[in-house]
């Protein structure tokens, strides 16, 4: 009896300690919950679904960033250009298919065409990732690891310039968009009308993230990727080929960004600088969650989307980038390693 009385306050004490240890996380969680309820009361289900779509996309982009930083210690600022390439590939695959469908209606192809375009973007993204890693990062890594984070950062900025201006040179600054992927009426869900394109985009993001999660947690190669992010030397000692894992990781991240670029084609259109907004928002997500924290990036994606749409709703559309930026500054001041407190190994050592 006396023992039970002792344990009860102890769990309360533990909870208190846990809250104090994870104060930034608790604050963000409580704040997000309040915002979520407010958005729901004001906007109803369509707004919630909007957050789900945008959040899933930010999560898809940010997991790529988190992977690249966690495994390769590259602060990737050309991630938006992977998004841009994906958007262009999506456009150039979907548009001819769509034209063809005008002349020869075919219900099966109509359903499959957007998926084909998005898959093509994923494949091109993966190949581009391999090419960039093999041509740029691998040679640098083999030459020296001194000042790696800074050098890699500058390289990604350079890649971003080259890709943006290269695309501008070849394809011109024109906007290439599509009105919609699926030319059908919006679906009625929970008393609200939601475009099929949005449902598809959210579905693709969620499926891709789940596949990635399964790959990282359950397969041998996925386990090797996590091993490299935790201890490079240890990974080499058990026989993991660092070059292979790093090329694979970069390729996966690029493919995921390209997939989100193609699946958001109906929202963003394709033009050379389309990647800037997605890049900033995915960086907000990884800064909020903690650099290199893949699980945190998924949750963070939805939090940033929530911030974004509640700003649109309560303050005004033009403030939608300002408020997340202010929140990021606060996060950096209060919890520099993110609300989930990720600890990236190897950065300090280099």
């Amino acid at each position, binding site marked *: 009896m006396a023992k039970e009385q002792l344990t009860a306050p102890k769990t309360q004490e533990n909870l208190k300690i846990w809250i104090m240890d994870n104060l930034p996380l608790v604050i963000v969680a409580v704040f997000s919950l309040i915002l979520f309820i407010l958005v729901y009361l004001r906007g109803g289900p369509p707004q919630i679904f909007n957050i789900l779509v945008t959040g899933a996309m930010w999560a898809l982009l940010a997991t790529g960033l988190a992977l690249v930083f966690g495994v390769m210690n590259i602060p990737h600022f050309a991630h938006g250009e992977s998004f841009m390439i994906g958007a262009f590939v999506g456009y150039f695959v979907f548009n001819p298919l769509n034209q063809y469908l005008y002349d020869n209606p075919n219900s099966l192809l109509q359903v499959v065409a957007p998926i084909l375009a998005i898959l093509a973007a994923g494949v091109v993204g993966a190949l581009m990732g391999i090419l960039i890693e093999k041509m740029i990062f691998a040679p640098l890594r083999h030459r020296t690891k001194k000042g790696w984070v800074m050098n890699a950062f500058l390289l990604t900025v350079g890649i971003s310039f080259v890709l943006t201006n290269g695309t501008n040179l070849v394809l011109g600054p024109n906007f290439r968009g599509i009105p919609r992927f699926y030319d059908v009426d919006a679906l009625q869900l929970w008393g609200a009308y939601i475009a099929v394109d949005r449902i598809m985009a959210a579905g693709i993001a969620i499926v891709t993230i789940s596949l990635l999660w399964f790959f990282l947690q359950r397969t*041998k190669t996925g*386990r*090797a990727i*996590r*091993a490299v992010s*935790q*201890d490079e*030397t*240890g*990974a*080499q*000692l*058990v*026989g*993991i*080929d*660092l070059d292979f894992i790093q090329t694979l990781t970069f390729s996966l991240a690029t493919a995921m960004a390209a997939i989100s670029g193609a699946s958001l084609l109906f929202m963003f259109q394709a033009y050379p600088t389309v990647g800037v907004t997605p890049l900033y928002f995915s960086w907000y997500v990884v800064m909020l969650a903690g650099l290199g924290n893949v699980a945190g990036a998924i949750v963070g994606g939805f939090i940033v989307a929530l911030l974004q749409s509640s700003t649109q709703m309560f303050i005004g559309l033009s403030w939608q980038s300002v408020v997340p930026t202010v929140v990021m500054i606060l996060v950096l001041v209060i919890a520099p390693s993110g609300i989930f407190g990720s600890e990236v190994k190897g950065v300090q050592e280099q």
Partner: protein
Amino acid sequence: MLEIKNLDSGYEFLQVLWGVSLYVDDGEFVALIGPNGAGKSTTLRTIAGLIESKGGEIIFNGKSITKKSAHIISRMGISYVSEALNLFTDMSVRENLLLGAYAVKERGVQLETLDYIFELFPRLQERRDQLAGTMSGGERKMLAIARGMMSNPTLMLVDEPSLGLQPNLTYDVFDALLQLRDQGVTILLVEQNVNATLDITDRAYILEQGKIVMEGPSKEVKSDEHVRNAYLGI
């Protein structure tokens, strides 16, 4: 099994090893001892491929592994248990062990070795789902050695297993190494605990300032005047 000829090695502007030659025969338990900074760890790290040698040759089972990268050397059957352990701290004990068998293709063989390891280290079986980073120092050493064994290596390079351990745990680790030796695994051990090391090993090399200054059966080395004065404090 392992033969090193005139090995020069070190870091960018600092050469640590100067013409080190040594050999380890099949099934032997060999010690490499010496004072701090003599280059013991550098020797092991160079064999494991973590440091590129500056000269000389390393031959393993008749093949030169001098300039090979670490993961290839590991796949050839050399397992290096480093001083820093290099465990995957955010993964469970089981995942760490399975990664130790990364180069083993057949899943069945992996699981068989895992069962065998758990039999050898019951403590690790108890903690199979615990994160490696949350274990005590002694358990982490055990895990590092066990992970090194998961690839069924023919040669194990073990770097200072007793470092930072209380004496009774040190003997646990040494027991594990002796069991390994009895399984027919060849071991090259680097240790600071000279007295105990010379009791359990077959042969010993003394490394001072990057050069081998003495070699011989452990018993002879232990009775040597210089060793008794410098390392055993007798």
